[in-house]
C-alpha cells in the first residue's frame, strides 16, 4: 500500500505512537504514585514520631512511641476487639437509620413543598445543635423500646439517636438537592410520555439524585462513626457493653496512654475503611455514566 511508504504518514504515526507511549507511561507512574506516595509519607511520619519520642525521652504516659502503640494493640487486642465490634455495630446501625430517614424525608420533601417548608427548619436545627451538649439529656429521656420479637436497650437507643442526628443531615440535604436537579428537558420528555408522578420519581429523579446521595453518604459515613464515638463518651458503659470511646476514657483515667492510642488507631482505621468502601461503591454505581466518574483521556 502506498500509504505505508509515505514518509509524512509514517512520521505522523510515529508521533502518535510516541504520544501514546508517553501517556501510557504517565498512567503507570500515576498508578504507582497513588499507593507509594501516601505509604512513604506515612512511614516517614511514623519514623519522625519514633525519633522525637526517643531523642527527647518522652515518658510513655505523655506520648507513647509508635512501636509501643503497636505492641499494645497486639497485646490488648482481645479486649479492644470486643469494644471495636460494638462501635462498628452502632456506627452502621446509625448510618442505616441516617440513610433510611434521610432519603425518606428527601422524597417526602420533594413530593410536597408544604411538608418541606414545615419540616426543613427542624432538620437544620438538629444539624446545628451541638450533640455533645444534648447527648446527656438524650440518655436521660430514652427508654427501652419493645418491638415484640426483641427489645432495644435504652442505652443503644440513645447511642443511635446521637449518631443519627450527626449523620442524617448530609444525606437529607444532598438527596433533596439531587431530586430537584433532574434535567428539565428530561422532565418534559417524561411529560410527553405521559409518565405518572411515581414514574418520574422512580425512573428520572431517583437515578438523577444518586450521585448527590453518594456524595452525602461519603460525609455521613464518617459522621456516623464520630457520632457513635461522641455518644459513647457521654454514655459511658451500660447495657450494650463498652465501645472504643469507653476504652479511651478508661485508659486515660488509668494513664494507659499507649492503649488509648491503640483504640484511637482502630477508630481511625474504621473511618478510613468506611470512606474507601463508599468510594468504591460510588465508582461501581457511577463509572459508566456520570461525569464525575467517567475516565477520559484528556
Amino acid at each position: 500500500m502506498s500509504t505505508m511508504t509515505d514518509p509524512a504518514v509514517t512520521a505522523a504515526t510515529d508521533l502518535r505512537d510516541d504520544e501514546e507511549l508517553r501517556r501510557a507511561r504517565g498512567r503507570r507512574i500515576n498508578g504507582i504514585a497513588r499507593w507509594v506516595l501516601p505509604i512513604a509519607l506515612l512511614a516517614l511520619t511514623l519514623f519522625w514520631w519514633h525519633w522525637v519520642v526517643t531523642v527527647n525521652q518522652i515518658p510513655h504516659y505523655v506520648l507513647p512511641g509508635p512501636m509501643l502503640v503497636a505492641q499494645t494493640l497486639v497485646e490488648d487486642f482481645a479486649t479492644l476487639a470486643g469494644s471495636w465490634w460494638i462501635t462498628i455495630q452502632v456506627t452502621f446501625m446509625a448510618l442505616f437509620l441516617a440513610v433510611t430517614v434521610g432519603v425518606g424525608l428527601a422524597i417526602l420533601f420533594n413530593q410536597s413543598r408544604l411538608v418541606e417548608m414545615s419540616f426543613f427548619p427542624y432538620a437544620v436545627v438538629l444539624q446545628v445543635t451541638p450533640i455533645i451538649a444534648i447527648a446527656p439529656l438524650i440518655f436521660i429521656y430514652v427508654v427501652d423500646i419493645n418491638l415484640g420479637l426483641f427489645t432495644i436497650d435504652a442505652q443503644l437507643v440513645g447511642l443511635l439517636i446521637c449518631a443519627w442526628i450527626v449523620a442524617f443531615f448530609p444525606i437529607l440535604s444532598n438527596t433533596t438537592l439531587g431530586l430537584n436537579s433532574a434535567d428539565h428537558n428530561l422532565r418534559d420528555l417524561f411529560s410527553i410520555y405521559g409518565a405518572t408522578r411515581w414514574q418520574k420519581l422512580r425512573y428520572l429523579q431517583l437515578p438523577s439524585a444518586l450521585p448527590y446521595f453518594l456524595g452525602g453518604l461519603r460525609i455521613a459515613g464518617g459522621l456516623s462513626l464520630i457520632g457513635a464515638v461522641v455518644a459513647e463518651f457521654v454514655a459511658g458503659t451500660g447495657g450494650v457493653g463498652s465501645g472504643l470511646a469507653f476504652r479511651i476514657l478508661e485508659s486515660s483515667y488509668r494513664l494507659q496512654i499507649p492503649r488509648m492510642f491503640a483504640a484511637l488507631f482502630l477508630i481511625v482505621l474504621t473511618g478510613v475503611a468506611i470512606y474507601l468502601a463508599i468510594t468504591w461503591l460510588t465508582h461501581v454505581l457511577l463509572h459508566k455514566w456520570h461525569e464525575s466518574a467517567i475516565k477520559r483521556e484528556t
Partner: protein
Amino acid sequence: MTAPGLVLSGSARVDGAPLFGPVDFAAPAGRWTCLLGPSGVGKSTVLRLFAGLAGPVTLDGHAGASDGAPLAGRVALMAQQDLLLPWLDVLGNVLLGARLRGRRGDRAAARDILERVGLSAHAHKRPAALSGGQRQRAALARTLLEDRPVVLLDEPFSALDARTRAQMQDLSAALLARRTVLHVTHDPAEAARLGHHICLMAGDGIRPVPLSAEPPPRAFDAAATLSLQGALHRRLMQAA
C-alpha cells in the same frame, strides 16, 4: 396510523408580556414542515404548545390537531439535547416509552430499529460512550419505536458536524416519511434540504414561503437547493 395536521392560531404571552402573534399557522398532515426563524422569536414556544409543555406561556387562541382530537399521546419530541437517560444503555433508552407504559417492550422491534439507524453494535453502551451523531441516532430510534404520528423536532441536528448532520438529515427524512413533522430550525440550509413546506417566523407573524423545488430530501449540493437556501437566507435577513 393516519397522521393529523397541526394548526395554531392566536397570540401567546408569558406573564402578561406578548411573546408572539397573532399568528395563523398550519402544518399539513403527513408532510415535513420547517419553521424557520431567528433565535428568540418564539419558534420553540410553538413546538412546546403542540407538545403540551407550554409551562408559563398563555395562548390566546388554539393549538392542536387538524382532526380535532387531543394531541396528547400522539406526539414525539426530538431536541438538540439528545434527551437520553445517561444511566440507561441505548436499548434501555429506546425502550423507555414502553417501560413507562408498564409493558416490557418489544426487544426484537427495538433491535430492528437500532439496525436501521446503524447502532446495532452499540446497543449496550451508555450515552456517554457514544459520539454526538450516535446519540442523535439513538434518539431517532426511540422516536421511531414510539411510532407517534406527529413528530416535533427542535433543532435536533444543530450540534452535529456538517457531515454527520447531512447523514442524519437523510436518515430522518427517510424514516419519518408519511408522519406529520414540525421541524423548528434557524438554519436556512437545513430547511432548504428537508421541508415539504417552509414557514418563516418573524416578529410580525408566521408566513409560508412559496416552494417550487423538488420534494425532500434535496441534495445538499444541488443548484436548486443552494438557490433555495440563498433565498431563505435573504428572507431571514429581511424579516429582522
